[in-house]
Protein backbone atom coordinates (compact mmCIF):
# COMPACT_ATOMS: atom_id res chain seq x y z
CA UNK A 1 0.00 0.00 0.00
CA UNK A 2 2.75 2.42 0.90
CA UNK A 3 4.49 1.40 -2.28
CA UNK A 4 1.42 2.31 -4.31
CA UNK A 5 1.33 5.66 -2.55
CA UNK A 6 5.01 6.26 -3.28
CA UNK A 7 4.51 5.52 -6.97
CA UNK A 8 1.32 7.60 -7.11
CA UNK A 9 3.07 10.48 -5.43
CA UNK A 10 5.87 10.28 -7.96
CA UNK A 11 3.41 10.25 -10.86
CA UNK A 12 1.43 13.19 -9.52
CA UNK A 13 4.66 15.10 -8.98
CA UNK A 14 5.72 14.33 -12.55
CA UNK A 15 2.38 15.45 -13.93
CA UNK A 16 2.50 18.67 -11.96
CA UNK A 17 6.01 19.28 -13.17
CA UNK A 18 5.50 18.48 -16.83
CA UNK A 19 1.77 19.11 -17.28
CA UNK A 20 1.77 16.66 -20.14
CA UNK A 21 -1.51 14.92 -19.66
CA UNK A 22 -4.29 16.86 -17.98
CA UNK A 23 -4.13 20.07 -20.03
CA UNK A 24 -4.13 18.01 -23.21
CA UNK A 25 -7.15 16.05 -22.07
CA UNK A 26 -9.01 19.17 -20.99
CA UNK A 27 -8.24 21.08 -24.14
CA UNK A 28 -9.23 18.13 -26.26
CA UNK A 29 -12.59 17.88 -24.49
CA UNK A 30 -13.44 21.53 -24.93
CA UNK A 31 -12.45 21.47 -28.56
CA UNK A 32 -14.57 18.39 -29.06
CA UNK A 33 -17.61 20.09 -27.57
CA UNK A 34 -17.18 22.94 -30.00
CA UNK A 35 -16.82 20.48 -32.86
CA UNK A 36 -19.98 18.71 -31.77
CA UNK A 37 -21.74 22.05 -31.74
CA UNK A 38 -20.86 22.55 -35.36
CA UNK A 39 -21.17 18.93 -36.35
CA UNK A 40 -24.64 18.50 -34.90
CA UNK A 41 -25.72 21.98 -35.94
CA UNK A 42 -27.70 22.58 -32.79
CA UNK A 43 -27.42 25.36 -30.23
CA UNK A 44 -27.97 22.97 -27.33
CA UNK A 45 -28.38 19.29 -26.62
CA UNK A 46 -30.31 17.54 -23.94
CA UNK A 47 -31.39 14.08 -22.82
CA UNK A 48 -29.82 11.00 -24.33
CA UNK A 49 -28.05 12.94 -27.05
CA UNK A 50 -26.33 15.13 -24.49
CA UNK A 51 -25.36 12.08 -22.45
CA UNK A 52 -23.86 10.47 -25.54
CA UNK A 53 -21.86 13.54 -26.47
CA UNK A 54 -20.51 13.97 -22.95
CA UNK A 55 -19.63 10.31 -22.45
CA UNK A 56 -17.95 9.86 -25.80
CA UNK A 57 -15.91 13.03 -25.36
CA UNK A 58 -14.74 12.01 -21.90
CA UNK A 59 -13.90 8.56 -23.20
CA UNK A 60 -11.74 9.86 -26.02
CA UNK A 61 -10.06 12.38 -23.76
CA UNK A 62 -9.41 9.55 -21.34
CA UNK A 63 -7.67 7.60 -24.08
CA UNK A 64 -5.19 10.46 -24.37
CA UNK A 65 -4.35 9.98 -20.73
CA UNK A 66 -4.12 6.24 -21.14
CA UNK A 67 -1.54 6.48 -23.87
CA UNK A 68 0.81 8.46 -21.69
CA UNK A 69 0.46 6.44 -18.55
CA UNK A 70 3.48 4.20 -18.85
CA UNK A 71 5.55 6.15 -21.33
CA UNK A 72 7.87 7.65 -18.75
CA UNK A 73 8.45 4.23 -17.22
CA UNK A 74 9.37 2.76 -20.54
CA UNK A 75 11.58 5.55 -21.77
CA UNK A 76 13.32 6.48 -18.57
CA UNK A 77 13.84 3.10 -17.03
CA UNK A 78 10.98 3.35 -14.58
CA UNK A 79 10.00 -0.27 -15.06
CA UNK A 80 13.46 -1.51 -14.18
CA UNK A 81 13.67 0.76 -11.18
CA UNK A 82 10.38 -0.55 -9.89
CA UNK A 83 11.12 -4.18 -10.66
CA UNK A 84 14.45 -4.01 -8.87
CA UNK A 85 12.87 -2.80 -5.67
CA UNK A 86 11.63 -5.17 -2.94
CA UNK A 87 8.01 -4.25 -3.46
CA UNK A 88 4.73 -5.89 -4.30
CA UNK A 89 4.35 -5.54 -8.05
CA UNK A 90 0.62 -5.19 -8.00
CA UNK A 91 1.21 -1.85 -6.29
CA UNK A 92 2.11 -0.50 -9.70
CA UNK A 93 -1.34 -1.38 -11.01
CA UNK A 94 -2.97 0.29 -8.03
CA UNK A 95 -0.82 3.39 -8.34
CA UNK A 96 -1.28 3.83 -12.08
CA UNK A 97 -5.01 3.18 -11.98
CA UNK A 98 -5.36 5.68 -9.15
CA UNK A 99 -3.34 8.23 -11.08
CA UNK A 100 -5.51 7.76 -14.14
CA UNK A 101 -8.63 8.00 -12.01
CA UNK A 102 -7.43 11.27 -10.53
CA UNK A 103 -6.53 12.65 -13.96
CA UNK A 104 -10.01 11.79 -15.19
CA UNK A 105 -11.57 13.42 -12.13
CA UNK A 106 -9.63 16.63 -12.71
CA UNK A 107 -10.54 16.47 -16.37
CA UNK A 108 -14.21 16.23 -15.49
CA UNK A 109 -14.02 19.15 -13.10
CA UNK A 110 -13.00 21.19 -16.13
CA UNK A 111 -14.90 19.47 -18.91
CA UNK A 112 -18.33 19.05 -17.32
CA UNK A 113 -18.84 22.75 -16.53
CA UNK A 114 -17.51 23.51 -20.01
CA UNK A 115 -20.06 21.11 -21.42
CA UNK A 116 -22.79 22.78 -19.41
CA UNK A 117 -21.68 26.14 -20.68
CA UNK A 118 -21.21 25.34 -24.35
CA UNK A 119 -23.64 22.64 -25.23
CA UNK A 120 -26.03 21.57 -22.54
CA UNK A 121 -29.56 22.89 -22.67
CA UNK A 122 -31.02 22.16 -19.25
CA UNK A 123 -29.20 23.37 -16.14
CA UNK A 124 -26.80 20.95 -14.55
CA UNK A 125 -27.38 21.82 -10.89
CA UNK A 126 -30.09 19.41 -9.77
CA UNK A 127 -28.60 16.46 -11.64
CA UNK A 128 -25.07 17.06 -10.39
CA UNK A 129 -24.84 14.63 -7.46
CA UNK A 130 -26.18 11.73 -9.54
CA UNK A 131 -23.94 12.71 -12.40
CA UNK A 132 -20.92 12.65 -10.14
CA UNK A 133 -21.85 9.20 -8.89
CA UNK A 134 -22.12 7.83 -12.43
CA UNK A 135 -18.91 9.45 -13.58
CA UNK A 136 -17.07 8.11 -10.54
CA UNK A 137 -18.04 4.56 -11.46
CA UNK A 138 -17.25 5.19 -15.11
CA UNK A 139 -13.84 6.64 -14.24
CA UNK A 140 -13.08 3.55 -12.22
CA UNK A 141 -13.75 1.35 -15.22
CA UNK A 142 -11.72 3.52 -17.57
CA UNK A 143 -8.90 3.65 -15.03
CA UNK A 144 -8.69 -0.13 -14.70
CA UNK A 145 -9.02 -0.92 -18.39
CA UNK A 146 -6.83 2.01 -19.32
CA UNK A 147 -4.02 0.87 -17.05
CA UNK A 148 -4.17 -2.69 -18.35
CA UNK A 149 -4.29 -1.68 -21.95
CA UNK A 150 -1.54 0.88 -21.50
CA UNK A 151 0.70 -1.70 -19.88
CA UNK A 152 -0.01 -4.06 -22.77
CA UNK A 153 0.61 -1.41 -25.37
CA UNK A 154 3.76 0.15 -24.00
CA UNK A 155 5.89 -2.86 -24.80
CA UNK A 156 4.72 -3.19 -28.36
CA UNK A 157 5.91 -1.37 -31.42
CA UNK A 158 2.67 0.33 -32.34
CA UNK A 159 2.05 1.60 -28.86
CA UNK A 160 0.06 4.74 -29.59
CA UNK A 161 -2.37 2.86 -31.74
CA UNK A 162 -2.74 -0.42 -29.92
CA UNK A 163 -3.99 1.26 -26.76
CA UNK A 164 -7.12 2.81 -28.24
CA UNK A 165 -7.69 -0.04 -30.67
CA UNK A 166 -7.88 -2.61 -27.89
CA UNK A 167 -9.19 -0.30 -25.20
CA UNK A 168 -12.15 1.26 -26.92
CA UNK A 169 -13.99 -1.96 -27.72
CA UNK A 170 -13.28 -3.17 -24.19
CA UNK A 171 -14.82 0.02 -22.84
CA UNK A 172 -18.00 -0.21 -24.88
CA UNK A 173 -20.08 -1.78 -22.11
CA UNK A 174 -18.95 0.97 -19.76
CA UNK A 175 -19.74 3.53 -22.41
CA UNK A 176 -23.22 2.17 -22.94
CA UNK A 177 -23.96 1.97 -19.24
CA UNK A 178 -22.61 5.45 -18.54
CA UNK A 179 -24.42 7.13 -21.40
CA UNK A 180 -27.70 5.40 -20.63
CA UNK A 181 -27.39 6.25 -16.95
CA UNK A 182 -26.72 9.92 -17.64
CA UNK A 183 -29.41 10.27 -20.30
CA UNK A 184 -32.37 10.70 -17.94
CA UNK A 185 -30.37 13.12 -15.81
CA UNK A 186 -30.05 15.59 -18.64
CA UNK A 187 -33.66 15.58 -19.73
CA UNK A 188 -34.89 18.91 -21.06
CA UNK A 189 -37.85 18.92 -18.72
CA UNK A 190 -35.76 18.27 -15.62
CA UNK A 191 -33.79 15.30 -14.38
CA UNK A 192 -35.46 11.94 -14.07
CA UNK A 193 -34.27 9.57 -11.38
CA UNK A 194 -31.01 7.71 -11.96
CA UNK A 195 -31.67 4.32 -13.59
CA UNK A 196 -30.35 1.77 -11.14
CA UNK A 197 -29.93 -0.98 -13.71
CA UNK A 198 -27.15 0.87 -15.50
CA UNK A 199 -25.31 1.66 -12.30
CA UNK A 200 -25.43 -2.02 -11.51
CA UNK A 201 -24.02 -2.98 -14.88
CA UNK A 202 -21.30 -0.39 -14.54
CA UNK A 203 -20.42 -1.64 -11.07
CA UNK A 204 -20.37 -5.23 -12.33
CA UNK A 205 -18.09 -4.23 -15.19
CA UNK A 206 -15.73 -2.43 -12.80
CA UNK A 207 -15.64 -5.37 -10.43
CA UNK A 208 -14.98 -8.02 -13.06
CA UNK A 209 -12.20 -6.11 -14.74
CA UNK A 210 -10.64 -5.00 -11.48
CA UNK A 211 -10.39 -8.65 -10.48
CA UNK A 212 -9.03 -9.66 -13.88
CA UNK A 213 -6.53 -6.81 -13.75
CA UNK A 214 -5.37 -7.81 -10.29
CA UNK A 215 -4.89 -11.38 -11.47
CA UNK A 216 -2.99 -10.73 -14.68
CA UNK A 217 -0.98 -7.59 -14.01
CA UNK A 218 2.05 -9.36 -12.57
CA UNK A 219 2.41 -11.32 -15.78
CA UNK A 220 2.79 -8.13 -17.72
CA UNK A 221 5.73 -7.03 -15.65
CA UNK A 222 7.80 -10.14 -15.33
CA UNK A 223 10.36 -11.26 -17.84
Amino acid at each position, binding site marked *: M*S*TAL*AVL*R*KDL*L*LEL*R*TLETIPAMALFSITTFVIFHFGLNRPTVDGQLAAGVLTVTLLFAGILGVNRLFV*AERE*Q*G*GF*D*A*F*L*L*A*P*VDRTALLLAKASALFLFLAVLEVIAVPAFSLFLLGPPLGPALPSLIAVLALADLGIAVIGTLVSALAVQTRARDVIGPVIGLPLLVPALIATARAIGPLLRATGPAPLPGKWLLILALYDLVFALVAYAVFDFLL*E*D
Partner: protein
Amino acid sequence: MVDTPAIELRDVARYFGERIALRDITFAVPAGATLAVLGRNGAGKSTLLRVLATLLRQHAGEVLLLGEPLPRRGFAVRGRLGLLAHEPLLYRDLSGRENLRYHARLYGVGSERVEEVLRAVRMERRADEPVRLLSRGMVQRVAVCRAVLHDPEILLLDEARANLDPGASELVEPLLGRPAGRTRVITSHDPQAALAEADLALGLRDGRPMFSLPADQVTPDLVRELYA
Protein backbone atom coordinates in the same frame (compact mmCIF):
# COMPACT_ATOMS: atom_id res chain seq x y z
CA MET B 1 31.98 -19.75 9.30
CA VAL B 2 29.54 -19.09 6.51
CA ASP B 3 30.71 -20.79 3.36
CA THR B 4 27.75 -20.20 1.11
CA PRO B 5 28.85 -18.24 -1.91
CA ALA B 6 27.07 -14.94 -2.31
CA ILE B 7 26.29 -15.76 -5.93
CA GLU B 8 26.02 -19.20 -7.45
CA LEU B 9 24.96 -20.20 -10.94
CA ARG B 10 24.67 -23.72 -12.32
CA ASP B 11 24.05 -24.50 -16.00
CA VAL B 12 22.07 -21.34 -16.46
CA ALA B 13 20.58 -20.69 -19.87
CA ARG B 14 18.50 -17.88 -21.29
CA TYR B 15 17.07 -17.70 -24.80
CA PHE B 16 15.55 -15.02 -26.90
CA GLY B 17 13.19 -16.98 -29.08
CA GLU B 18 15.51 -19.51 -30.65
CA ARG B 19 18.63 -17.43 -30.18
CA ILE B 20 20.94 -18.36 -27.31
CA ALA B 21 21.60 -15.43 -25.03
CA LEU B 22 23.24 -17.49 -22.28
CA ARG B 23 24.12 -21.15 -22.15
CA ASP B 24 25.93 -23.47 -19.70
CA ILE B 25 26.78 -20.65 -17.32
CA THR B 26 28.26 -22.01 -14.12
CA PHE B 27 30.25 -20.09 -11.52
CA ALA B 28 30.30 -19.09 -7.87
CA VAL B 29 31.32 -15.83 -6.25
CA PRO B 30 32.25 -15.86 -2.55
CA ALA B 31 30.97 -13.07 -0.35
CA GLY B 32 32.97 -9.90 -0.70
CA ALA B 33 34.69 -11.00 -3.91
CA THR B 34 34.52 -9.32 -7.29
CA LEU B 35 33.76 -11.11 -10.55
CA ALA B 36 34.67 -9.51 -13.84
CA VAL B 37 32.52 -10.58 -16.79
CA LEU B 38 34.35 -10.09 -20.07
CA GLY B 39 33.34 -10.46 -23.67
CA ARG B 40 32.51 -8.64 -26.85
CA ASN B 41 29.32 -6.71 -27.42
CA GLY B 42 26.47 -9.11 -27.63
CA ALA B 43 28.33 -11.84 -25.75
CA GLY B 44 25.68 -11.88 -23.06
CA LYS B 45 27.24 -9.75 -20.32
CA SER B 46 24.28 -7.46 -19.85
CA THR B 47 21.87 -10.37 -20.05
CA LEU B 48 23.78 -12.14 -17.31
CA LEU B 49 23.67 -9.07 -15.11
CA ARG B 50 19.96 -8.69 -15.67
CA VAL B 51 19.43 -12.29 -14.63
CA LEU B 52 21.44 -11.64 -11.48
CA ALA B 53 19.41 -8.49 -10.85
CA THR B 54 16.21 -10.63 -10.92
CA LEU B 55 14.99 -8.66 -13.93
CA LEU B 56 15.18 -11.68 -16.21
CA ARG B 57 14.28 -15.22 -15.41
CA GLN B 58 16.64 -18.00 -16.40
CA HIS B 59 15.16 -20.56 -18.77
CA ALA B 60 17.29 -23.37 -17.40
CA GLY B 61 19.63 -23.99 -14.52
CA GLU B 62 19.80 -22.62 -11.01
CA VAL B 63 20.55 -19.16 -9.75
CA LEU B 64 21.25 -18.69 -6.06
CA LEU B 65 21.72 -15.24 -4.64
CA LEU B 66 22.71 -15.03 -0.99
CA GLY B 67 21.52 -18.59 -0.71
CA GLU B 68 18.09 -17.84 -2.10
CA PRO B 69 16.94 -19.58 -5.30
CA LEU B 70 15.71 -17.35 -8.08
CA PRO B 71 13.21 -16.55 -9.40
CA ARG B 72 11.10 -18.06 -6.67
CA ARG B 73 12.71 -16.12 -3.85
CA GLY B 74 13.42 -13.01 -5.83
CA PHE B 75 11.43 -10.81 -3.49
CA ALA B 76 13.63 -11.89 -0.58
CA VAL B 77 16.86 -10.67 -2.16
CA ARG B 78 15.83 -7.67 -4.18
CA GLY B 79 16.36 -5.31 -1.31
CA ARG B 80 19.95 -6.54 -0.95
CA LEU B 81 20.97 -6.00 -4.57
CA GLY B 82 22.03 -2.91 -6.39
CA LEU B 83 22.26 -2.47 -10.15
CA LEU B 84 24.04 0.27 -12.04
CA ALA B 85 23.90 -0.03 -15.81
CA HIS B 86 23.85 2.20 -18.89
CA GLU B 87 20.44 3.59 -17.99
CA PRO B 88 20.56 5.74 -14.88
CA LEU B 89 16.94 4.79 -14.07
CA LEU B 90 16.12 8.35 -13.08
CA TYR B 91 13.15 10.45 -14.13
CA ARG B 92 14.46 13.32 -16.18
CA ASP B 93 11.84 15.80 -15.07
CA LEU B 94 12.37 15.22 -11.39
CA SER B 95 15.36 16.46 -9.46
CA GLY B 96 18.11 14.17 -8.21
CA ARG B 97 16.83 14.52 -4.69
CA GLU B 98 13.24 13.75 -5.69
CA ASN B 99 14.38 10.71 -7.62
CA LEU B 100 16.39 9.44 -4.69
CA ARG B 101 13.58 10.09 -2.24
CA TYR B 102 11.29 8.03 -4.47
CA HIS B 103 13.76 5.16 -4.48
CA ALA B 104 14.24 5.56 -0.75
CA ARG B 105 10.53 5.04 -0.28
CA LEU B 106 10.56 1.98 -2.49
CA TYR B 107 13.40 0.48 -0.47
CA GLY B 108 12.20 1.57 2.94
CA VAL B 109 15.23 3.78 3.48
CA GLY B 110 15.15 7.08 5.36
CA SER B 111 15.74 10.48 3.78
CA GLU B 112 18.87 11.07 5.86
CA ARG B 113 20.49 8.34 3.83
CA VAL B 114 19.58 10.26 0.66
CA GLU B 115 21.47 13.28 1.95
CA GLU B 116 24.36 11.08 3.03
CA VAL B 117 24.94 9.61 -0.43
CA LEU B 118 24.44 12.94 -2.16
CA ARG B 119 27.16 14.39 0.03
CA ALA B 120 29.43 11.43 -0.68
CA VAL B 121 29.32 12.16 -4.42
CA ARG B 122 29.36 15.93 -3.90
CA MET B 123 26.00 16.46 -5.56
CA GLU B 124 24.10 17.89 -2.63
CA ARG B 125 23.99 21.39 -4.04
CA ARG B 126 22.81 20.45 -7.49
CA ALA B 127 20.39 17.83 -6.33
CA ASP B 128 17.36 20.07 -6.75
CA GLU B 129 17.74 20.62 -10.45
CA PRO B 130 15.80 18.42 -12.87
CA VAL B 131 17.96 15.55 -14.00
CA ARG B 132 17.64 16.52 -17.63
CA LEU B 133 19.63 19.66 -16.91
CA LEU B 134 22.58 17.79 -15.46
CA SER B 135 25.63 16.71 -17.40
CA ARG B 136 25.99 13.04 -18.17
CA GLY B 137 28.70 12.69 -15.55
CA MET B 138 26.51 14.24 -12.87
CA VAL B 139 23.61 12.04 -13.84
CA GLN B 140 25.84 9.05 -13.42
CA ARG B 141 26.83 10.24 -9.98
CA VAL B 142 23.20 10.46 -8.93
CA ALA B 143 22.69 7.03 -10.45
CA VAL B 144 25.48 5.73 -8.24
CA CYS B 145 23.58 7.16 -5.29
CA ARG B 146 20.50 5.33 -6.41
CA ALA B 147 22.37 2.05 -6.68
CA VAL B 148 23.87 2.15 -3.20
CA LEU B 149 21.08 3.96 -1.41
CA HIS B 150 19.94 0.83 0.36
CA ASP B 151 23.49 -0.35 1.08
CA PRO B 152 23.21 -3.55 -0.94
CA GLU B 153 25.27 -6.65 -0.22
CA ILE B 154 25.60 -7.43 -3.91
CA LEU B 155 26.44 -4.78 -6.46
CA LEU B 156 26.03 -5.32 -10.20
CA LEU B 157 27.93 -2.84 -12.28
CA ASP B 158 27.43 -2.84 -16.03
CA GLU B 159 29.88 -0.32 -17.52
CA ALA B 160 29.43 1.77 -14.40
CA ARG B 161 32.51 3.93 -14.89
CA ALA B 162 31.39 5.13 -18.29
CA ASN B 163 30.64 8.86 -18.34
CA LEU B 164 32.62 9.50 -15.21
CA ASP B 165 35.68 11.71 -15.37
CA PRO B 166 38.66 10.60 -13.24
CA GLY B 167 37.69 12.98 -10.44
CA ALA B 168 34.16 11.65 -10.25
CA SER B 169 35.48 8.12 -10.56
CA GLU B 170 37.52 8.68 -7.43
CA LEU B 171 34.51 10.06 -5.61
CA VAL B 172 32.40 7.01 -6.23
CA GLU B 173 35.14 4.51 -5.50
CA PRO B 174 34.33 4.21 -1.79
CA LEU B 175 30.72 3.51 -2.67
CA LEU B 176 31.20 1.17 -5.61
CA GLY B 177 34.69 -0.17 -5.24
CA ARG B 178 36.34 -2.97 -3.35
CA PRO B 179 36.76 -1.00 -0.11
CA ALA B 180 33.02 -1.08 0.41
CA GLY B 181 33.27 -4.83 0.97
CA ARG B 182 30.34 -5.75 -1.22
CA THR B 183 30.17 -8.75 -3.48
CA ARG B 184 30.43 -7.34 -6.97
CA VAL B 185 29.90 -8.40 -10.55
CA ILE B 186 31.35 -5.94 -13.00
CA THR B 187 31.54 -5.60 -16.74
CA SER B 188 33.61 -3.11 -18.60
CA HIS B 189 34.70 -2.28 -22.10
CA ASP B 190 38.19 -2.19 -20.75
CA PRO B 191 39.08 -5.78 -19.83
CA GLN B 192 42.38 -4.84 -18.21
CA ALA B 193 40.72 -2.31 -15.92
CA ALA B 194 38.06 -4.81 -14.97
CA LEU B 195 40.59 -7.54 -14.28
CA ALA B 196 42.62 -5.18 -12.14
CA GLU B 197 39.87 -4.83 -9.60
CA ALA B 198 38.52 -8.38 -9.78
CA ASP B 199 39.20 -11.63 -7.97
CA LEU B 200 37.49 -13.85 -10.53
CA ALA B 201 36.91 -13.58 -14.23
CA LEU B 202 34.31 -15.08 -16.54
CA GLY B 203 34.83 -14.84 -20.29
CA LEU B 204 31.70 -15.02 -22.43
CA ARG B 205 31.51 -15.68 -26.12
CA ASP B 206 28.14 -15.76 -27.89
CA GLY B 207 26.45 -16.51 -24.60
CA ARG B 208 28.69 -19.42 -23.71
CA PRO B 209 31.51 -19.39 -21.15
CA MET B 210 34.96 -19.44 -22.65
CA PHE B 211 36.79 -19.39 -19.36
CA SER B 212 36.08 -19.08 -15.67
CA LEU B 213 39.26 -18.39 -13.73
CA PRO B 214 40.78 -16.40 -10.91
CA ALA B 215 41.50 -12.97 -12.32
CA ASP B 216 45.25 -13.21 -11.96
CA GLN B 217 45.33 -16.33 -14.13
CA VAL B 218 43.78 -14.55 -17.09
CA THR B 219 46.61 -13.90 -19.53
CA PRO B 220 46.58 -11.16 -22.16
CA ASP B 221 46.51 -13.90 -24.82
CA LEU B 222 43.35 -15.31 -23.36
CA VAL B 223 41.77 -11.87 -23.41
CA ARG B 224 42.83 -11.31 -27.00
CA GLU B 225 41.33 -14.64 -27.99
CA LEU B 226 38.07 -13.76 -26.28
CA TYR B 227 37.77 -10.50 -28.13
CA ALA B 228 39.00 -11.83 -31.43
